């Protein structure tokens, strides 16, 4: 299957980006260096092309019911211009995907939502919504608009000043997880105070054909998916397909440390299973790890206890550019999950001493 290309592919190539395949998309992984891009976001501001993220649009008399029954959080709490982090779970309460749901202004008097599934999952998610809508005989329109919208993230402590300079109006009043329509250089965009770095910042959903104008107007360092990954690991944020995966690493929101996305007072697919798990407690939990010995934890490496018995697996890992320490995420039985617990990570056959750390690894917004 040919890779999908983001609308800014040419601009990134001219800027000297290296590319990688991600979720079926050909995306910039690095412009200058992951370290310098990472540092720009932590101390100043940087921009990311995240057009590989999906966009699904849901509207109609039963839009709220459909969203409520297919996601784990309570969408009825969303006023227009609000957003929430949520998960899509199966009947067993296993996370199929995580997502951010935005409540758009009502269209034709009906509640309207835009939500952002992960790269490469938009078609399956769209099918899931359609299938359940039909099964439940709900009146809602579900459009996959992934190819109509580009998405740009502007992240870092200086992101508000940068964005404030170029938009009509101000973003100063926008609280965390709030969103609104605005214009930049005459281009209509949906701007939200959200992100995936642990820093303050914004995500802009813009028409595909106007992505270039927005990208070039936001005058700051270009950052690739490499820095996006190191930033999100430091912030303790999950990556779908890696830190959870319905096939290879089935996890509930409780195990993954995002139980706050589950509202058991709502009715949704997976609710009953999660209610039972909430009552019984989890057996394993996602933890942060730092390596004390030299080495870098990587996805798939074994985690052992101090007697060298395998107790878990690393799901994400890197050398933290901010902390200058090797850090990772992984699942272990709850008896090993307390911060300060000594464990080991097996790097190329050698046991490296590791310590359980509280998440996130850094201070986040």
């Amino acid at each position, binding site marked *: 299957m040919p890779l999908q290309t983001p609308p800014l592919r040419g601009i990134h190539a001219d800027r000297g980006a*290296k590319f990688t395949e991600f979720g079926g998309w050909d995306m910039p992984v690095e412009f200058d260096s*992951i*370290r310098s891009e990472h540092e720009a976001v932590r101390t100043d501001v940087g921009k990311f092309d995240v057009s590989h993220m999906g966009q699904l649009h849901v509207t109609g008399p039963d839009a709220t019911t459909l969203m409520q029954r297919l996601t784990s959080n309570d969408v009825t709490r969303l006023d227009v211009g609000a957003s929430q982090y949520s998960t899509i779970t199966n009947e067993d309460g296993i996370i199929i995907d995580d997502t951010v749901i935005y409540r758009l202004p009502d269209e034709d008097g009906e509640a309207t939502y835009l939500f952002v599934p992960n790269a490469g999952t938009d078609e399956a998610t769209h099918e899931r919504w359609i299938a359940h809508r039909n099964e439940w005989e709900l009146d809602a329109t579900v459009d996959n608009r992934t190819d109509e919208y580009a998405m740009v993230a502007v992240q870092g402590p200086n992101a508000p000043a940068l964005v404030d300079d170029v938009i009509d109006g101000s973003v100063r009043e926008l609280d965390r997880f709030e969103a609104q329509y605005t214009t930049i250089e005459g281009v209509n965009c949906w701007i939200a105070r959200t992100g995936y770095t642990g820093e303050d910042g914004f995500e802009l959903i813009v028409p595909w054909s106007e992505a270039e104008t927005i990208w070039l107007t936001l005058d700051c360092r270009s950052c690739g998916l*490499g820095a996006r990954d190191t930033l999100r690991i430091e912030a303790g944020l999950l990556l779908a397909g890696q830190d959870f995966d319905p096939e290879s690493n089935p996890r509930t929101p409780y195990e993954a440390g995002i139980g706050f996305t589950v509202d058991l007072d709502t009715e949704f697919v997976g609710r009953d299973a999660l209610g039972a798990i909430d009552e019984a407690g989890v057996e394993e939990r996602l933890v942060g790890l730092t390596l004390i010995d030299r080495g870098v934890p*990587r996805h798939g490496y074994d985690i052992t206890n101090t007697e060298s018995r395998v107790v878990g697996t690393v799901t994400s890992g*890197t050398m933290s550019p901010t902390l200058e320490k090797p850090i990772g995420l992984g699942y272990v039985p709850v008896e090993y999950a307390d911060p300060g617990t000594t464990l080991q990570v097996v790097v190329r056959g050698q046991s490296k001493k590791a310590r359980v750390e509280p998440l996130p690894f850094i201070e986040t917004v």
Partner: protein
Amino acid sequence: MSFETPDDRRYLESHEWAEERDDVVRVGITDFAQDELGDVVFVELPDEGETVTQEEEFGVIESIKAVSDLYAPVSGEVTVINEALFDAPELVNDAPFGEGWMLEIDPDDPDDLNEILTADDYDDQIA
């Protein structure tokens, strides 16, 4: 983008360079290789006194995004390793042909060097 490839050295397709210095052969990775890897964060090298075999693994280099094996350009005994890389692996990015060198080998057979790529051959490979 063009990369420096000094012609006083020999090369492996796997991007290591070998420089004959008196009785030993000094080894590192090329400018092209460090650029492909990105920020180097970790280097694992053999101990001094260990033997290495031509075109077989002698160590591992890790950048933020990738893990890569290192291959020996010649067979022989490791006489010295560049311990500076343990505290400052970024030297591999800053000076791949200089301070970022990795180890020196006392070659079993100095002719080993003639069996591997010249600078021109290597340039053709990465072009």
